[in-house]
């Protein structure tokens, strides 16, 4: 298999991942899209490693680490998504806009919100 094939495939995969990140509303789907991006990189790494016949196998090792990192990220990510779901009962990211730049609410409303908590 020629290197360029692998690289093209990886680029495609990465593009799909990016699209997924931008297009999907579900937080979990977003996580999956990110996984696609990382795996695109992995594909590249492994392909390059093979191409270079790297004696240190830097690419392969790197790919392994990326897998670990991805796992850790997903772990933390899912935990956060879970928290969000518990508090908001939704995992749709476009509804999460409580924190945004908007004009200050009147002080009284602040207090009301505070008391309500």
């Amino acid at each position, binding site marked *: 298999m020629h290197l360029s094939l692998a690289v093209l495939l990886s680029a495609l995969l990465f593009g799909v991942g*990016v699209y997924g*990140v*931008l297009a999907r*509303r579900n937080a979990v789907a977003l996580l999956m899209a990110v996984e696609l991006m990382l795996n695109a990189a992995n594909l590249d790494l492994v392909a390059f490693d093979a191409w270079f016949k790297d004696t240190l196998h830097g690419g392969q090792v790197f790919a392994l680490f990326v897998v670990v990192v991805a796992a850790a990220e997903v772990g933390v990510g899912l935990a956060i998504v879970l928290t969000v779901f518990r508090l908001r009962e939704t995992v749709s*990211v*476009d509804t*999460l*806009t*409580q*924190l*945004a*730049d908007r004009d200050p609410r009147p002080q009284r409303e602040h207090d009301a919100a505070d008391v309500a908590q």
Partner: protein
Amino acid sequence: MTHWAWLLPALPALAALVGLFGWRLVPGGPVVPAVVGSVGALVVATALVVAVEGNPALVHENAVAWTPTGGIALHIGTRVDGLAAVVGVMVCVVALLVQIYSTVYMAGDPRYATYAAEVSLFTSAMLLVVVASDLFELLIGWELMGLCSYLLVGHYWQTEGARAAAVKAFVTTRIGDTGFLFGIFALGVGAGSFDLTAVMDRVPAMSHPTVLAGALLLLCGVVGKSAQFPLHVWLPDAMAGPTPISALIHAATMVAAGIYVVARLYPVFLAAPVALTVLGIIACITMLGAALCALAEDDLKRVLAWSTVSQLAYMAGGLAVGGWTAGVWHLLTHAAFKALLFLAAGSVLRTVGTNLMSEMGGLWRHMPITFGTALVGAGALAGLPPFAGAFSKDGILSAAKDHGGALGNAVYVVGLVTVFVTAAYVTRLILRTFLGVHRGPVGGEPVRLHESPLQMTGPLVLLAAFAVVLGAPVLPSSYGVRRWFGVPAGTQPLHVGWAGVLLTTVIATAAVIGVVLLHRRRPADDPVAVLGRAAVPLRRAFWVDEVYDVALVRPVHALARAVLALDLRGLDATAVGTGRTATFAGGGLRRLQNGNVQAYLSALVAGVLVVVLAVAVAVAR
């Protein structure tokens, strides 16, 4: 003695200081420093005349280093020669008489102390101009006079007229003074020194454009100070000040300073004939124009003011045609008779309580001394022998005739015409003021007419004496000139011919007789009424004020409003607007922070994409 010449301006200055701040400590009040200062200055001036007597062309200069400027260093000191000494005496005499006169005239004025101190300062400033050895030193005196005239003209600052006149006087002369300052630049930089002697010595070495520029620019100041056309407008208005001040301004200080400076720096002007021609033209216009204005004026003091303008033009004309001696001589005689006339006018005004001649008349009976002395002054002004003015004026006309050429002939002819007009308005003045019946203010209460006290009549008599004595033709023409004036080289020798005097006398007498005849025909009417509608431009002073108002004052104020508007709505608004724009931009950028994480991510990816593409393209290229 000339080492002590600095005392000449210093003594009145000290008197001014004491009079302003310390008069409460002086037994006798503010009068004492005022009079003592003037007397002291007169003593010094007399001593100076004695010191330079016999060899008046020799310059006694005493200067000390004043200040470095980064370029040409300045010196301060005195420069005394015959001219300075004689003019110094003239100034001191008039100033002293004015101070004495004022003790009565201004008695009861709540601000007398300030007034007297300002008169002292005025005297001091003029004396500084007289003896200054450095152009900037001269300028200080020059401008200080502007200030004093401002303060004194505006002495009655409760009245709108006085306030306006004061500002007008200062600003108008200041316009000329700016040119004067630049003239000093031109000459001083050209000569490499601001010392008067050095400047005059180095005139031959300077390039002609420099000398011409210097002379013309200096003329601006002269025209302003000596109230020549087109900067004459302030002088008639300056009558809003107390009358003794008018005497001071018109005779000894301020207006005299302009003529004096031309005489003092005469070598500069001689080296720039164009400047002298300009001066001559200005003199011709002013001479006749002002005399015509005087003819139609009803206000006694304004008549005198116009006459001053006209007489100063005679001096300027004399200097323009090389009649240095005649010009200076006329300066002296004029100082005597004009001070006399103003003080006499003051005496009259104080009694009748009005300035308008139409409300006077028949005063000779009640004020014999005033009338008598005024008659002397009037004779001198009209150019009738044996009074001084006749001879000095003839000196100027003779010089013009001798000078010849277009300029000389113009000055001569206009001078002769003006003699006629002068005699006419002088006659009208005497007739309307002193003769006939007393008309009194229209609808006003009758006033008790009486002669003024000795402090006022004394100076009148003394000045009348001067107005006669100074005219002795032998005095300057042969003996006196050599003895007391240092005549600059290249000037017309003074030449007073009896033929000339006869001619002017005939012309003047004709005018006198003409006006008297007119008066006889209709004693109640103003003789000028015969001119009918032709008198209107004269009464309005040829609308010069109106022209200035339309051409200068209004545009300046309009521009001022525009500038302020520009500042608020233009520059400041731009600055504030920039701030607002920043805030607004901040508001706009803020909208991007809408809370939607996918929007954020899109921006991130877009950013990366742009940068990556840009970089990749840039590198590939």
